[in-house]
Every structure is written in structure tokens, then in C-alpha cells.
């Protein structure tokens, strides 16, 4: 894949650090590990880019030790006539993506996450979706169906008038069902995330910098947080926005408009915090994400830090790694040397990997 013709690699337990200049293939290694674990690239929406230029396919196979035993995962990307087809296998058996996902947990931290608080809501939603899809196949199924029905509803609203009312009602019925599943899952996940982020943040800054609060800004009111309660609120909000959705020719209600809000002492951190305060909050969030994934799955997720450490001052680097504490295996890429307790350091030059003596 990418700039690698072939590579066999047996990482060690603990912290694996890849050092190298840009465009040598450090991040490609992390991308391969993420693809193996989650079946998706964290770097690109155009996954056909993963396939080495001029070749028809790329494939990654790996052995992982999980609570259930040893599992052999394999993910191949095949490009034929411009279309990408992905094939997943577990222990040599072909499986659907829904059963592939979640065998191994992966928590990824990339530089884009550093602007999580100031960036667009889509960035925060995609973090929620990536974490929840690994957590629950039901969430993944609901998200996939929701996205499909939302696309169809938008196309219907944009199509020539008069609108087929029965078809619009059909899409809304499905969106309410799938969307409600998503809202309930996000609500519980953000509550768990918020609790951990608050504790981590407090341990770092004490009371001096204030209390970090993470909350769910759900588009559909979740005051009655049950399946029926949310579905009823959803239907009411759709009725409210009925004419606005038509005049703007786009769906205006549902979890595709949700957000995750960070506050420090009650003030929105994205708008009012200093860059330092924002970064600390992001780090607390990532540590919390790791902790929730570990608590929910009962095993330590793989941790991937892509070019993030060198973006942080030494004090924050240490705080992050200390707080993550118990990770069994982590992969870090960096262009500049970083002060971390590496179990193994590898130099990456032109898609070659060379272990550096400790």
C-alpha cells in the first residue's frame, strides 16, 4: 500500500516510535494499522489512494491477541475500473464489514484533532461516529442506514416539485428510527466521555484552570431520553421544520446536525478559551476516549498517534502519555525526536524500516 511494495513488521509491546522525515512512509504505517483494525483509513476519504499507484490492489494482514484469543485480520483494497472494492477476512474467512469492525479497538490521534474545538461540528461528529461504530455494530448499522436515507431525502427535497409526500414520509419514518438509535448511543457515550475527561483535566490542572464540561448538543431534544421519548420529540421537530426543509431543499432535523460542546467553567471553550486551554481539553478528550473504549470492550485498544507529539510542548507530551498509562501497545510517528519512553524506535526512510538500538 501507498509507498510500500511489501513489508513484514512485528511490533513490540509498549510504545513503538517511528522517526523519519516527511513523505518517507511513517504515517502510511499507522494508516495500515488503522485499516487493519477498523477497516477504514483515517487519512483520506478517497481510499483508492491507499493502493500503490499503478497496482490493482493493496492488502494488509495482521495477527492480534485479544481477550477472545488470537485473531488474524485481513483487509484488501481492490481497484478495478476506477471503483474500489474492499474485502475483509477474519481467520481466513471472508466477512461483511459489519462483523469485521470492532474485533480490535483502535484509538487514533491525528493533528486535525488538535483543532477539534475550533473546527466545524462535522469534525466532532466524525470522532463520535468512529468511536461508536467500533463500539457497537448496531450503531454502525444505524449510522450507515441513516446516512443512506438522509441522502435520499435530500435528493427528494431537491428534485422537481411537487414532492412525493408518501415517499418523504417513508424516509422520515426510517430517519426517526435509525436517528433515535444514534441519539441514544451518542448520549450515553458523551456522558461517559465527559466524566472521564473531567477527571483527567482536573488531575492535570487542578482547580486553577476551572472545570471542564463536555456536553451533547443534540439537534433533536433529548429531554425524555428513551426510545419513545426521543422518537416523539424527533417527529415534533420534523413537523416544526417541515416548511423550512422544503424551502431550503435540505434535511434540517436529526443527528447529522448534532454537536459536542466543550465548556470551561460554563463558558464555551471553542470560542473563549486560549489555545493552551483548548489543547489541554483535546488531550483530556482523547485520554477519555481511550478509557471509554477500554472500559466498554474490556481490553486495551491500540493507540495511534500520528505526528501529534511533536505538536505538543514536552510537558503536555508527558502528561498525555502518563494519563494513557496502561496502554498495551501504541504507535507514534514523529519527524523530530521526542522525549518518550519508547519500547522500540524505528527509523523510516524511503519505505524501509530500521530498528534503532536503544
Amino acid at each position: 500500500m501507498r509507498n510500500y511494495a511489501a513489508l513484514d513488521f512485528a511490533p513490540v509491546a509498549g510504545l513503538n516510535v517511528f522517526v523519519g522525515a516527511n513523505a518517507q512512509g511513517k504515517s502510511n504505517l499507522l494508516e495500515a494499522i488503522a485499516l487493519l483494525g477498523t477497516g477504514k483509513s483515517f487519512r483520506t476519504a478517497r481510499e483508492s489512494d491507499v493502493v500503490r499507484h499503478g497496482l490493482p490492489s493493496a492488502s494488509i494482514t495482521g495477527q492480534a491477541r485479544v481477550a477472545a484469543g488470537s485473531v488474524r485480520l485481513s483487509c484488501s483494497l481492490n481497484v478495478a475500473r476506477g471503483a474500489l472494492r474492499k474485502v475483509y477476512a477474519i481467520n481466513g474467512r471472508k466477512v461483511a464489514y459489519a462483523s469485521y469492525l470492532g474485533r480490535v479497538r483502535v484509538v487514533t490521534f491525528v493533528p486535525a484533532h488538535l483543532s477539534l474545538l475550533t473546527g466545524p461540528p462535522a469534525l466532532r461528529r466524525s470522532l463520535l461516529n468512529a468511536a461508536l461504530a467500533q463500539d457497537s455494530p448496531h450503531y454502525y448499522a444505524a449510522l450507515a442506514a441513516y446516512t443512506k436515507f438522509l441522502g435520499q431525502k435530500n435528493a427528494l427535497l431537491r428534485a422537481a416539485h411537487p414532492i412525493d409526500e408518501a415517499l418523504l414520509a417513508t424516509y422520515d419514518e426510517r430517519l426517526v428510527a435509525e436517528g433515535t438509535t444514534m441519539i441514544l448511543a451518542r448520549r450515553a457515550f458523551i456522558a461517559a466521555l465527559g466524566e472521564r475527561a473531567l477527571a483527567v483535566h482536573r488531575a492535570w490542572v487542578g482547580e486553577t484552570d476551572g472545570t471542564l464540561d463536555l456536553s451533547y448538543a443534540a439537534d433533536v431534544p433529548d429531554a425524555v431520553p428513551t426510545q419513545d421519548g426521543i422518537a416523539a420529540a424527533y417527529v415534533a421537530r420534523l413537523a416544526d421544520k417541515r416548511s423550512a426543509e422544503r424551502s431550503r431543499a435540505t434535511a434540517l432535523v436529526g443527528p447529522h446536525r448534532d454537536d459536542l460542546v466543550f465548556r470551561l467553567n460554563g463558558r464555551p471553550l471553542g470560542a473563549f478559551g486560549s489555545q493552551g486551554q483548548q489543547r489541554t481539553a483535546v488531550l483530556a478528550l482523547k485520554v477519555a476516549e481511550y478509557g471509554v473504549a477500554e472500559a466498554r470492550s474490556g481490553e486495551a485498544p491500540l493507540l495511534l498517534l500520528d505526528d501529534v507529539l511533536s505538536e505538543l510542548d514536552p510537558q503536555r507530551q508527558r502528561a498525555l502519555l502518563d494519563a494513557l498509562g496502561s496502554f498495551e501497545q501504541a504507535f507514534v510517528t514523529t519527524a523530530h525526536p521526542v522525549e518518550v519512553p519508547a519500547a522500540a524506535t524505528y527509523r523510516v526512510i524511503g519505505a524501509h524500516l530500521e530498528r534503532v538500538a536503544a
Partner: protein
Amino acid sequence: MPTVGPKTAARLVFHLLNRPRSEAQSLAEAILAVKDRIQLCSHCFALTEDDPCALCSDGRRDATLLCAVAEAKDIYALERTGAYRGRYHVLGGLISPMDGIGAAQLRIKELIERLAAEGPDELIIATNPNAEGEATALYLARLIAPSGVRVTRLAYGLPIGGDLDYADEVTLAKALEGRRTLS
């Protein structure tokens, strides 16, 4: 040709080159016959040489059951089961506004006219279990339910011969939702 990649295409060409001319001739004639003789049944829109098709003109088929399918090829899949003795209606696709396909692009008006004219007791919707198949089925149910015809849909479920512990959780959950009474 769909599903034929460059390698298979080359294999087909070499195979034909190794066969006598008469065989190529009869293949070419068969292809032309498909183009010239096969048409849509004016009743159910299945592919047929005679109009109405053999299924529509077979008086022994159960007229109280009508089964709506997306494509004509789906009829052959259902006929192979030998488990269905009713009639069919080919919609000609699935609703998908993203692809510019609404109800007007499919044979839904014709379906509703047939329901009124033939008065079956039950309409079975046999669309694929994907988002478009599901939306098309629910849309049809919404349109047709007021007329009093019972509308049903193929069940989601576990593959026969499969193991419960190999089924993915989503399939298993759907199968649980669609469970049936034994006693």
C-alpha cells in the same frame, strides 16, 4: 459486458476462435433472437417471448397472491424455490431519488391498477434488504395499505445451515425482530 473483466473476455475470444464457424454462427443468431423476440409482458412486465407471459396465462397460478419484485431476474430466483404459486409484478427497479428514480419511473401506477382490477388478498414485496429495497417496500405499503390489501415483506434472517455464533449481530438482531410463533 457486465461482470466480464479483460481476462475473461480474452479467454472467451480464444475459446470462440478454437470452435467451428457454425458454432459462432448459432451463438450470433441466438443473441439476435434475444434482441428480436424477447419483450416485456404487458401484464406483469416479466421478460417473455409471448405476451402475456407463461406465468400470467397459467390459470393454475394462485390469483389471491401477488408478488412485487424489482427486476425480472428476481422472478427466476423465486420460481426456483418452487415455494410460490402466485403471480408477479416487476417494478423495474427501486426508488432512489439520488439516481433520479421516483415512483413515476417505476411501474407502481400499473401495480395499483392491477390490485384494483385483480383484487388479490395479499401483496408480497420481495425487494432486497438494503436501504433502497426497504424504502421501496415501506413506500408501497404506505400507498397500498388503505385499500385493504394485506401487504407483507420477505423476512430478514439467518442463512440456512449457518451457525448462530457466526452470524453478525445486526443480522441476528433483525432475525430476532422477525421471529415467529411456534405454538
